[in-house]
């Protein structure tokens, strides 16, 4: 597996981490947490979207590099 493939895997897992983070914050908000939790949740979603956009652009840029 080349660095390209590993990087995509890494970004995918980072996206997953962001989503889990924001889900956790949202859960704490529904339990009666502060508004800060909501800010965390939105930030998490935001960074997940940002990472996905980056990942797609990365794949386009390295179109010619092998995954192997």
């Amino acid at each position, binding site marked *: *597996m*080349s*660095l*390209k493939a*590993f*990087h995509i895997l*890494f970004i995918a*897992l*980072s996206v997953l*981490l962001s989503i*889990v*983070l924001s889900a*956790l914050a949202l859960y704490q908000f529904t339990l009666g947490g502060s508004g800060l939790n909501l800010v965390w949740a939105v930030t998490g979603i935001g960074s997940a979207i940002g*990472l996905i956009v*980056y990942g797609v652009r*990365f794949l386009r*840029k*390295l179109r010619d*590099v092998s995954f*192997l």
Partner: protein
Amino acid sequence: MEIPYTATARPDTGLYNGKLGIWLFLASEVMLFGALFSSYILLRVGAPVWPHGSELLNVPLATINTVVLISSSVTMVMSWASLMMKDFSKYRMYMGFTILLSFVFLVIKYFEYTSKFSHDIFPSTSTFYAIYFTMTGLHGLHVIGGIVVNAYLWGPGNKMWKSDPQRFTNRVEIAGLYWHFVDLVWIFLFPVLYLL
């Protein structure tokens, strides 16, 4: 006689020696951290009470560190991509950023540790802190190892770009694979220790 496939891939395996080597090394690293994560689970399951990491540890600092490490992975892969595009000065820049970001990580980690020590919190305080210090400490050692390798490739090791660009690009890829692994460990450590 030269050792074959140090720079070019062997046709039937599709790999050059170094890439196979680093993946095998990472496999053993997975077993190392896997054993530590398993120990964490076993100790936690066996404990009558287990504290919430978010109540004892500094989550904002750790979040910043997570962002720092993810960014450093991005700059790492960019430095490799720059070499693929034959742009050596961009490689130097991105690799420099990677090293800088790893130092930022260590500095933040240093403040995290010392604030714990100043509150008389040590590994011996409780099993939670014991596993926290052991795992983040071992991860920190891996970060230091990464800095050493990356600094070599940024500085004295880059002479190889003139003599054997293919092998130099391979070396950067190998360092990148290692660096991604170190960051990936953090991606697992962060929620497990700080959030759950």
